[in-house]
């Protein structure tokens, strides 16, 4: 029992709960003094759905206390505190042995990468389960078992949990892979790395707590004035996203420093594995744009807590301003979600095609092209918002421009496949499906970009289908490919191929059906984010099909989890260069020891020269 409570994670959570209560009590005490001594008129406690015992300010301050306490409890700030007190700490902190190491503040980038990935999978499962619940509700028209408020809350939480899950998933992939791919012993700032991961955990707890605190009914976009009126859960959502933003920003900073400063000898920019390029582009966006979503949410928090009318027209504010601030992050964010996935596609294709990546430099630069143009397109989410009408035209131009660098990637992938010797083990299957699904997502983009057609499509299921395609094609499929591909690197065993193929052949057709049907009903006029639809629209059958497809996807993911659990103990051993890759991490035995390469590696060639007789990319040791 004592051992259980000494786990960093458990200690952190206990601290978080206790300090949330202390923070709330503290604010309530101050308010009580103001009321009893100074005659302020305000409520100390509230017993309605919207506040749940403590009043809102008390909960918010409690939430902040809780996050800080979690970080202290888990031990993610120990070394810094000791340094501040002038104490020495070991230069290479040791993890606790075995699985316990994964529940405490490790500084090994590989452990952190796996921590990120597992947390991401956990959040994905919760978010996915929420989706199944309301997907079931939608099977028939008419309300079946959810009330509209719960529907809205589940739908909103599904959105934000999936987003946080994706952010953690890409952070996991980048953390695990980038130091290995550039030949570094670890990230540039290992303790900051640990901090960035752990702060995402209390953030996730805050997000989930909103379910118990009245929920929120705004979707993950949190537009005011609706979000100003929503129940207390709204504040927990804002706070959770705000804190998760720290994780992104600090993680991105660390990654950029690592790539800039810690590459192996001989690894010039155009000799980096392509995934490193996309990781850089992604991190540059995270580092510079995340602040805007944090800021916009913080402004609404202040509007609610302090009556500052930033977005309230009655007080001279403007609701549309929020949308600009919000989308200035949230559009580039979609490239944060997909660029690493596209990087994984480009990284794995040459291995399984046994041919160089076609137009390496173009593919590398296209990621930066996408990232750059991605900053100039945010208002395409606002064509119907009532912003200045003429703004819509320049944003149409810039949005369509994204098609150009994205097209370069597609053409290069196809050209890589052309005349190859293609092998199709499970990771490659997921890569191919990723390309196809991302193509569907990409092609359904332009109709949303041209203003007049978007006036029909905006806020319908067409958009829902479109972005599920981009997220699955750009993230989910490549992410599963990456897990099947690098699992042996992390564990020395490989995942079961039969179960892997079963996972693939269930998930892919089901997902394609689901997303195409979403777009179909959307084109016919089905609005998004609705708890119920009019039977007269004749969508019942379509929804039945979508619900069945969603359950098949869930089943396939379940099979994937079973595969993970079985293979980690019983999987076939694979300690060598399983995929005959040229990449540095496969030139040494799996699993990787702490501090990675036993001797520094040197880069003496180009990464993807498959089929070039006698070419070498990596030299290990002298």
């Amino acid at each position, binding site marked *: 029992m004592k051992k259980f409570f000494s786990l960093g994670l458990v200690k952190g959570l206990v601290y978080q709960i206790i300090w949330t209560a202390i923070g709330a009590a503290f604010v309530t005490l101050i308010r009580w003094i103001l009321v009893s001594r100074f005659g302020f*008129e305000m*409520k100390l406690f*509230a017993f309605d759905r919207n506040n749940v015992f403590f009043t809102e300010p008390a909960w918010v301050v409690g939430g902040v206390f809780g996050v800080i306490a979690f970080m202290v409890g888990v031990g993610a700030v120990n070394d810094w505190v000791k340094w501040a007190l002038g104490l020495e700490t070991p230069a290479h902190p040791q993890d606790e042995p075995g699985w316990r190491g994964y529940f405490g503040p490790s500084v090994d980038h590989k452990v952190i990468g796996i921590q990120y990935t597992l947390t991401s999978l956990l959040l994905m499962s919760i978010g996915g389960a929420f989706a199944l619940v309301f997907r079931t509700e939608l099977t028939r028209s008419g309300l079946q078992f959810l009330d509209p408020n719960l529907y*809205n809350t589940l739908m909103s939480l599904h959105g934000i949990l999936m987003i946080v899950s994706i952010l953690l998933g890409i952070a996991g992939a980048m953390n695990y892979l980038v130091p290995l791919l550039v030949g570094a012993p670890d990230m540039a700032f290992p303790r900051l790395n640990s901090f960035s991961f752990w702060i995402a955990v209390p953030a996730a707890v805050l997000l989930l707590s909103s379910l118990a605190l009245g929920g929120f*009914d*705004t979707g993950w976009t949190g*537009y005011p*004035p*609706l979000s100003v*009126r929503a129940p207390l859960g709204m504040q927990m959502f804002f706070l959770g996203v705000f804190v998760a933003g720290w994780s992104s920003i600090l993680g991105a900073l660390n990654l950029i420093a690592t790539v800039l400063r810690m590459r192996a000898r001989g690894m010039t920019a155009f000799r980096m594995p392509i995934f490193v390029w996309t990781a850089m582009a992604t991190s540059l966006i995270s580092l510079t744009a995340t602040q805007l979503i944090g800021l916009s949410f913080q402004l609404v928090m202040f509007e609610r807590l302090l009556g500052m009318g930033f977005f309230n*027209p009655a007080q001279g504010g403007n*609701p*549309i301003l929020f949308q600009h601030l919000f989308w200035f992050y949230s559009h580039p964010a979609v490239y944060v979600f997909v660029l690493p996935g596209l990087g994984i596609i480009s990284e794995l294709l040459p291995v399984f*095609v046994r*041919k*160089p990546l076609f*137009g390496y*430099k173009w593919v590398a630069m296209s990621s930066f092209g996408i990232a750059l143009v991605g900053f100039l397109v945010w208002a395409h989410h606002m064509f*119907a918002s*009532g912003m200045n009408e003429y703004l819509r*035209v320049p944003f*149409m*131009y810039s949005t*369509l*421009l994204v*098609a*150009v660098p994205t*097209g*370069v990637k597609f*053409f*290069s992938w*196809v*050209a890589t*496949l*052309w*005349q190859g*010797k*293609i092998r199709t083990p499970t990771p490659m299957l997921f890569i191919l499906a990723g*390309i*196809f699904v991302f193509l569907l997502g990409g*092609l*359904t983009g332009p109709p949303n*970009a*041209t*203003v*007049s*057609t978007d*006036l*029909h499509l905006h*806020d319908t299921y067409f958009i829902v289908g479109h972005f599920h395609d981009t997220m699955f094609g750009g993230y989910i499929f490549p992410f599963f490919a990456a897990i099947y591909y690098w699992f042996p690197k992390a564990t020395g065993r490989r995942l079961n191929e039969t179960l892997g193929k079963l996972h693939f052949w269930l998930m892919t057709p089901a997902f394609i059906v689901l997303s195409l049907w979403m777009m*179909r009903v959307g084109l016919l*006029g089905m*609005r998004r984010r609705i*708890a*119920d*639809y009019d039977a*007269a629209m004749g969508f019942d059958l379509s929804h039945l099909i979508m619900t069945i497809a969603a359950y098949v996807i869930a089943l396939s993911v379940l099979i994937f989890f079973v595969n993970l659990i079985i293979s980690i103990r019983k999987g076939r051993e694979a300690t060598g260069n399983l995929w005959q890759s040229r990449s540095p991490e496969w030139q040494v035995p799996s699993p990787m020891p702490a501090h990675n390469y036993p001797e520094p590696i040197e880069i003496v060639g180009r990464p993807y020269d*498959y*089929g*070039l007789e006698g070419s070498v990319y990596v030299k290990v040791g002298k």
Partner: protein
Amino acid sequence: MRHFVIVGLLVITATLLAYLGLGVVGLLPEQASAQAVTIDWLFNLEIIVLSFLFSLITVPLLYSLVVFRKREGDETDAVHIEGNTRLEITWTVIPLVIVIAFSYLGALNLGEVRRVDPQALDVKVVGFQWGWSFSYPEYGLKSLSELYLPVNRQVLLKMESRDVIHSFYVPEFRMKQDLVPGQITELRVTPVEPGWYTLACAELCGQDHAAMRAPVVVVSREEFEAWIEQKQSEAAEASLSGPSADRGEEIYRQYCKACHSLDGSNGTGPTWRGLIGEKVRLDNGATLIGDEAYIRRSIMEPNAQVVEDFNPNVMPVFGLDELQIEDVIEFIKTLQ
């Protein structure tokens, strides 16, 4: 070379099949406005280009998977082709040109959709949680619950929101426009097909967003005139006969039911049952007796006196006129 010819032919076939297939399935709802015709023209053009691009990627991809599979027992690498700068430039420049052309066409199309007819019929649209109301200033008609429109005449919808953001969307008209508090937004529609349609809110606006609908009826010019006359005489009758609980109930159904119950249970707002003549506790600790003046003030300035355990800034200001307020009070009086 042979590969290229086959793939080329397959791409053309696939493009045709995809385009025709989508046409057979039928992607869009009925075209009920002049703007829909314009917008669908652009849709059609996009579907052609997208069918082509879809085929251009998937056909060589599938072809490679079949033709360039690893042969049994062959463990060697494939040919070493690094890239081709000329090709890369081609597939950067051609899409760039297409993209600019589409933006240009898109801008023209938008201009066409927004074309102003100075003779347009003005209609005021008000959105609130969770319903709609329509006024026809030209005819002195206010707060109607259906949107009647004459066919073949442009309507200029001037829209406001009482509370949060909503969005005006009739799929058959192909357009939406948000209603933003503190601002008047406009949308121009020219209905061309008589019929019954449904207006639905397309911007998530809280609990009953899904149910925020209203009927839209497009009728011939004569029928429209007749409907206007009928509504005008109904309004005139109402102002002569004094307050009526029946009309109050009508208003309750339309605007207030979402938050106020009649059966004694509290929802988003307090129940109306037993409101008159009973004690009301306010959130500043004061109590008062519910009377006509209090109800009137609660409707016109909801935040002036907030009932205990309810939140301010929730109840919207509806802009009901004097007669309508009296109707509501008359109705509340019946709820003892």
